[in-house]
């Protein structure tokens, strides 16, 4: 059996920030009543964390949960855990009105690494990248496409976009991180209190 072929086939580009296809993940879309205890319990059992605040990503021992909208979450798991997590969730939620789908193949995932990740993203998204904190999850515009962006630490950013435009997103981020394009506008910057 041949290997699954991801949108970017492991591509990477070394600029002043390194742009590469992110590690494979299981992804589950979950729509439902985020305030309900059944959903909270199911999430705790499946991922090991609670429902994230709006515009946040929460981390548990079996993955992470990103807030997508007032009634939608995106669960990130290890690639082989998606199917199990999905059936666990579906079982736990039972008849409660919800929608849980395995969407592991629906998106392309890109990782940015380096001191300039905030700056590179500020070239292509309208987010206030200078003040964005790790743990914040933003659905936004990346050049001409919709995308989600978060920082896992000061030097690592993650981008999710639809699979069909993964190559476009990669190319846009690669040219934006080319050496010589350093802006230096965020150097030494600390958000005022």
């Amino acid at each position: 059996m041949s290997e699954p072929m991801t949108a970017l086939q492991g591509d990477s580009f070394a600029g002043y920030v390194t742009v590469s296809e992110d590690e494979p993940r299981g992804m589950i879309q979950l729509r439902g009543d985020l305030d309900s205890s059944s959903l909270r319990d199911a999430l705790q059992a499946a991922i090991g964390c609670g429902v994230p605040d709006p515009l946040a990503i929460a981390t548990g021992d079996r993955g992470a949960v990103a807030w997508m909208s007032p009634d939608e979450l995106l669960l990130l798991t290890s690639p082989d855990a998606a199917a199990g997590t999905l059936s666990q969730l579906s079982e736990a939620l039972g008849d409660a009105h919800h929608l849980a789908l395995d969407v592991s193949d629906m998106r392309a995932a890109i990782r940015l690494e380096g001191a300039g990740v905030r700056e590179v993203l500020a070239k292509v998204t309208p987010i206030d990248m200078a003040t964005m904190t790790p743990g914040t999850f933003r659905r936004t515009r990346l050049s001409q496409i919709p995308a989600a962006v978060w920082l896992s630490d000061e030097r690592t950013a993650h981008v999710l976009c639809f699979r069909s435009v993964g190559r476009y997103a990669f190319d846009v981020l690669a040219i934006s991180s080319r050496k010589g394009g350093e802006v230096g506008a965020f150097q030494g910057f600390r958000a005022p209190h």
Partner: protein
Amino acid sequence: MSHRLPTGGRRLTRSRRLNFTFDGKAREGVQGDTLASALMAGGQVLMGRSFKYHRPRGPVSAGHEEPNALVGIGQGSRFEPNQRATAAVLHEGMTAVSQNRFPTLENDIGAVNAKLSRFLPAGFYYKTFLWPASFWKSVYEPFIRQSAGLGRPPEGEDADRYEHFHFHCDVAVVGGGVAGIEAALNAAREGKRVLLMEQDRVWGGRTITDAGIDGIELGGQSPEAWVEDRIAELAAMENVTLRLNLQGSGVYDHGYLTAYEWVTDDRPGADAPRHRLWRIRTGLIVTATGAIERPLPFAGNDIPGVMLASAVRDYVCDYAVSPGKRVVVVTNNDDAYRTALALHGAGVEVPAVVDARPEVKGPLAARVRDAGIEILTASGIKALGGKKVSEVKVCDIDGDGTPTRTLRCAAVAMSGGWSPVPHLWSHCGGKLLWDEERAFFYPDPDRPPLGADGKGMVAAVGAAAGDLTLSESGVLGQVTLNEHAMRPVWIMPTGAGPELRSKMFLDYQNDVKVSDVQLAAREGFVSVEHAKRYTTLGMATDQGKLSNINGLAVLAGEVGSPIPQVGTTTFRPPYVPISMGAIAGEARGKIFQPLRRTPIHDWHEANGADWEPVGHWRRPYTYLKEGEDREAAVNREVKNARESLGLLDASTLGKIIVKGPDAGRFMDLLYTNMMSTLKVGRCRYGLMCSENGFLMDDGVVARLSDDTFLCHTTTGGADRIHAHMEEWLQTEWWDMKVYTSNVTEQWAQIAVVGPNARKTLEKLGGMDVSKEAMAFMDWADGQIAGIPARVFRISFSGELSFEVAVPANRGRELWEKLLSAGEEFGVTPYGTEGLHVLRAEKGFIMIGDESDGTVIPQDLNMQWAISKKKEDFIGKRGQERIHMTDPKRWTLVGLQTLDGGKLPDGAYAVAEGTNANGQRNTQGRVTSTYHSPTLGHGIAMGLVLNGPDRMGEVLEFPGTDGRVYKARIVDPVFYDKEGTKQDV
């Protein structure tokens, strides 16, 4: 002759010599020069020719407001025309060329226009080329185009890259002079997040030069030291971003500010973006943009060597350049006396200061007198010379210009007063007030442009607010020299006759003179916006930065209105022209636009795909083999699908999950037919209409479980239909328990089509796809070749057909496996055109061909897909309106040409008689037309008046090629009407 001074020039590093060329001749400047200062240092003041009369022109300013010294800079794919030599930073190897001259700058045959200038008044082109109308296109326009224009556009593709940068702050300060620095410091000390930007390469603005001449200290420091310390303080603050070479460009609603950064213009070829467009979101925009000096309208004020007084002292103090050995100063205010002092201090002779005011007092004038420079009061001048100033004639300011004295000189430093730079303030509607005494418009602090909170989002400070002497400044307010009142002068001398007035230039770049504005007013163009367009005043690349106030003051004088009543023209972004590349940012070449790729895209590309754009997707139209044209390829693909085995990448088809206790009810409202009765495991074709009843999308629905449906949409409809569903759920039927999800991209979907389709899937194994296990319109989950798959037995071709959906990352794998398994059957991938031909042979409609937003399902004989049992569905009431039930609506039929050829697409069937416009009446039109390789003749569908009742009738379709095509009305199902081929 202009020359470099032996000492001085605070911007220069004299030890670093820079070689450059101007019009091919080798030149030399030094580090810190602009192109203009380096040329002047080498004795060259003539730098360009004007637009209309090709008059010789030299720089008037020392900055971005320059109208005259426009040059082309760079070579080949990095050439950029219309650059301001006065702002272009000199670099080693710069190549610059003058513009709008032939054959050379010194000897330009176009200058004959100037001799004809009395025949080329304002509106000349409008008046002259009106008649005869037919001459415009063939005679006048080509002739005018030949001689019009300034710089030539660059040739070839731009070699550089560009980018955007998004920045957020509380306060964005535009202008890094003393006022801007103070504003930034005040905001930063309050803890605000501050961006301070300066268009120049250095901080400090005018103050360093001007306070230096006045001998003033700021807070006990020299002006340079004060600026340096404040900038260091700002740089050390974590909440402040400082940026040179960044120009505030445009102000837009909601605190949105664009700024333009010059990144590599002084090091062409560097591997870096050439320009960067900053897109700034800020709570407050502070415009500390300073003021611009106004020229004086005297005869000959455009001769090279005539410059703004402030520019002359910038050249002297910043660049150690004097425009001549003898420089006359002409003014109506005190400020120009600083220029006399700067020149005198640099050892340049100032024969006289000519002042329009009858009486001159004050400390600056006293210092000039003390220096032994003569002051001629109540006087004006006219300048004489060809390619440079040779002398000025002094006259009585209120006389007719009769000369009283001649002063020999090589240059003139003029000052007509100052105007605050109100552009950014005004872009979003900030209002201006007129200051009668100082004769300028300034921002009205009570009427700023308003932000989302109803409060002012722009604040002007310093000279930009009208405080020319920075009397409100914390450091300068205490110490500035007292300046005396100026005397507004709009025509010098005020009693000048027509001959002099036709040599007084207002807009240098477009050659608009005092006489032109006066003529426009006499001809009725009394509105400033009309006069502007009629005369082209302020319409050149400099957008009238120097000419606006003088021009409207002349207009006001001519129409007898006060200046504020005439008003200004509209200030629009950008402040100076910015590159198209900066606007586009990274969006060029392969990332000009997002291109959507299916999981099998790369295979298509490697195997001869002839691409067709479908939305942002690229889909293979057909796959070309060696030596094949499109038609042959399509024929091959269609025949193979009919006779053996075809494969189609159908991944782009929309796939939307609808789930919830109310899903059945929701589906019944969305589709025209009944969906809630669909059994789990079965598929049903359905139609969706808009509220008005028009057909908007179609596709196969599969019921996945009691509460879950999968809706297939058209490729282009996926996002739109998902949004349509969400809109109804969120705004109208918010009480329904339904969730939707657009999972289009989770799946790769491949149609396996043809008599050998089943055999091929059986070879791959994993699922029972026999007729018994999987009947037509069944679906099932399982595995194909070890890949998790959902198989739909549906057909858009009329053949035995399975659509196999697998997770997107396995799509390429399944495609390759199908190719190998199908090899023995001569498997043939087919593209969108094959898909179209196959469906058309079967009479299946295509959204976008048979439908166009005006077609209802009834027009397409699809009453069978419209439920009569349902109480409601979207479009039901629309379809009951009388226009929709009119029996005269054109209706779908098949069309077959009598000669077997192909009907032209979109052609109309003509009827007897003509309409009110004298055009032939029509009775139908072609919606789809193809050559059918299966049948060997042309097939078409069309909408025809009473079509289904007129089987066998022959219609005439005149083509745009002059031919009349004849076609017979036939059944739209051309192939396998009984449907036996797909049901095996």
